[in-house]
């Protein structure tokens, strides 16, 4: 069995599955149960300043969107940071860490953008024996209106400044949690890096409105007839998160900066994808909130089986393995030519591929009177839409053409050499090969 033990910025955990800072990690009761269920670590729900705790709304805090069979795909929340007294949280963190020394306990923090505030809270956290801190520069609702959370995360200068304070006043590893509500994720990540962060974690939630109540014309979730935007998470945000993780992972300026991957991790496969794109571990919230703590068992068994099958003995061999294959469009091989192929034994003749291709793409699928669907190679541009809309896995596949064959669509011979847009004759800025 593969070794799932993970060392993330010096914080060791028996597996790379941490619960993200969120309602599941708001108190000792939950965290103990999570550890019993097998989670490798937690990021404790964000602590604020000493004093009267924040208050939450007393109407719905969550909204959702669903797929077929009411499968929860996206969750939106307007809950704030912990609404329990600071001293209670600190006491509980200390107790939990004492009883689970092999698990990671990281504490999420959000205090005002003032040096004194950070200087004051850090020793209190350090005293609990927690393994590190995560700076919540991502929460996009409520706290951001008060100049915290994503209001900080959207200003790289603030990120760098606060990160410096944290590194100055604490010996604990510092993870900076980034907001996706920006245009270029590399800017805040670089600021964290410059400020001395040990790692970044991303993504926090995305500004969102999950729906509108069409009877009262109010955004959802609705509080007494009004709604405010919330933070969106769950399986639906995974592609956005993967891209942002990858952008940082492949950036030369931030090479080697550890990343904790967050955003829609629901199965072992999601976790493996984040890790392959450079995440040293993953943080999970919505999946646990949807299915309970027990889902970590599937993540553990699945990742372990996958690593065994790939001959990977430790998670560090998986981390970043896909990063070298992340490229820019201009460098993709234009001589790589594939054609869709429909497996007639698997085809159930629903005709979705035909509708998609005929109506919206390249009219490259033929339909016979008796509902047999075949690909017209002379029209197929290999866009993959038919594969994506087919309800049967592996029924439609893309088959690579071999060098020397003639592409019936272009009439050109398939070349074996790699060639991309930078040298393509249609590119006005093409670089000419030396003569």
């Amino acid at each position: 069995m593969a070794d799932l033990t993970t060392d993330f910025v010096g914080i060791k955990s028996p597996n790379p599955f941490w619960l993200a800072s969120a309602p599941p990690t708001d108190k000792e009761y939950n965290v103990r149960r999570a550890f019993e269920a097998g989670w490798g670590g937690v990021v404790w729900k964000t602590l604020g300043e000493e004093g009267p705790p924040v208050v939450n709304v007393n109407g719905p805090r969550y909204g959702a969107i669903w797929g077929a069979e009411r499968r929860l795909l996206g969750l939106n929340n307007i809950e704030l940071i912990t609404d329990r007294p600071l001293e209670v949280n600190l006491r509980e963190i200390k107790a939990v860490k004492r009883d689970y020394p092999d698990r990671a306990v990281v504490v999420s923090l959000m205090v005002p953008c003032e040096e004194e505030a950070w200087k004051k809270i850090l020793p209190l956290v350090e005293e609990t024996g927690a393994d590190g801190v995560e700076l919540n520069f991502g929460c996009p609702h409520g706290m951001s209106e008060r100049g915290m959370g994503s209001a900080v995360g959207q200003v790289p200068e603030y990120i760098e400044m606060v990160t410096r304070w944290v590194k100055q006043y604490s010996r604990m590893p510092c993870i900076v949690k980034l907001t996706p509500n920006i245009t270029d994720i590399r800017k805040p990540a670089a600021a964290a890096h410059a400020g001395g962060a040990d790692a970044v974690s991303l993504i926090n939630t995305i500004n969102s409105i999950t729906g509108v109540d069409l009877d009262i014309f109010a955004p959802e979730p609705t509080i007494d007839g009004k709604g405010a935007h919330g933070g969106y998470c769950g399986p639906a945000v995974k592609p956005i998160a993967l891209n942002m993780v990858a952008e940082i992972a492949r950036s030369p300026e931030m090479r080697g900066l550890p990343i904790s991957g967050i955003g829609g991790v629901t199965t072992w496969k999601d976790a493996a994808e984040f890790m392959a794109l450079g995440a040293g571990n993953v943080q999970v919230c919505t999946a646990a909130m949807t299915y309970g703590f027990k889902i970590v068992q599937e993540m553990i068994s699945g990742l372990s089986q996958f690593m065994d099958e790939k001959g990977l003995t430790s998670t560090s061999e998986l981390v970043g393995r896909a990063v070298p294959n992340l490229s820019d469009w201009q460098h993709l091989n234009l001589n790589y030519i594939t054609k869709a192929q429909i497996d007639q034994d698997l085809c159930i003749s629903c005709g979705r591929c035909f509708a998609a291709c005929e109506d919206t793409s390249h009219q490259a699928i033929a339909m016979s009177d008796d509902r047999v669907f075949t690909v017209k190679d002379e029209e197929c541009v290999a866009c993959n839409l038919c594969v994506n809309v087919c309800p049967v896995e592996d029924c439609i596949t893309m088959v690579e053409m071999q060098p020397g064959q003639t592409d019936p669509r272009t009439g050109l011979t398939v070349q074996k050499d790699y060639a991309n847009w930078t040298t393509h004759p249609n590119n006005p800025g093409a670089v000419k090969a030396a003569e």
Partner: protein
Amino acid sequence: MDPKMLSEGIVAGRRSAGQLAEAFDDLHPPLTEHEALVAADRCYFCHDAPCTVACPTDIDIPLFIRQIATGTPEAAARTILSQNILGGMCARVCPTETLCEEVCVRETAEGKPVLIGQLQRFATDTLMAADVHPFSRAASTGKRIAVVGAGPAGLACAHRLAMKGHDVVLYDARSKAGGLNEYGIAAYKSVDGFAQAEVDWLLKIGGITLENGKALGRELALEALRSEFDAVFLGVGLGGVNSLGVTGDEKDGVRDAVDFIADLRQATDLTALPVGRDVVVIGGGMTAVDAAVQAKLLGALNVTIVYRRGKDRMGASAFEQDLAASRGVRIITNAQPVAVHGNGSVREVEFAFTDDALTPTGQTFRLPADQLFRAIGQTLNGDGLPELDGRKIAITGAGRTSVAGVWAGGDCAAGGDDLTVTAVAEGRDAAEDIHAQLMK
């Protein structure tokens, strides 16, 4: 109609080899990968799932289904087999309609449960096809344990003991291991020699020596076993069959349903296996249905199950009753046999209708029969056994008998539902208890 269907008496070759092959094919063909993914997708991953609660072996059903859904059926198989080493057979023979699937929340919601049994088969078949045995033995304990009976209880017990590092001698009276999995269930539930394949796979754990042809009370004596081994587990099943207790019970053509089923399971050529034209099966349990349906599939013209109580009291599940009906078996309830008529061989069976208190109503009827199967329950055979509770071995806790160092489980032990899955649970739990006792 083929004239052979009309031939009187107990004759072979009523149907062609081709017809028989089709008739005895897999009752539930295995799910394809696509079907398995669609079925797995329907699971809600319930908390404290009712299906798991209903499973006698406590398999974590939501977890294994999620593992199938996420493309790791091998991990799913481990989840199943860690609780139930005969998970492959149980996936085929469990009356899921009265266990896990009955309580599935999607049965409640839509009347269509998640196909738990078939998904379990998909997972276990995947692992076994890869010829992987996912467990290994702990360091040797030096302890030796005799397991008597290589049926589901004995196999489960032996495997768990071997895993714990004990050495096991597994005895069985018959020439093959497997017990009722090999000799007792309908052929269409265990096709392609699955029972033996599963035994072979199970024994790959190592540390289990199988000795066939050795029966308690024949080659083996409990006292001798107790002195030779550190512990003894009895999983001997029920060797005897209840008699009808009516006139004519001994006539030719009257036999035990379990013997008919065993003959059928061991037959290499079903065209050579004789069956009556008019077959009557007396009883209301799974064995009655297995015998009746298989008699029909073999080519019997008329097959009737007669049960003395009402339909709702039948031991066979509603699914099994419907299966029998769909294969053309007639089920008569509230009737008990009065006499078996015939000159040497059975010719007719006379029944009296009964009310729910089993009091005859005074009305009788006769069914023509050239073959009559008794399926009214089995009994425990043997002397020198531990104390009995009623007609089975009395047990306390995890299979402890009245005799120190002797455990029992499966059909021979009191309690339980006489199901394969219950036997597996009892064998497994007894093994854990034996281990705890021996390692004190």
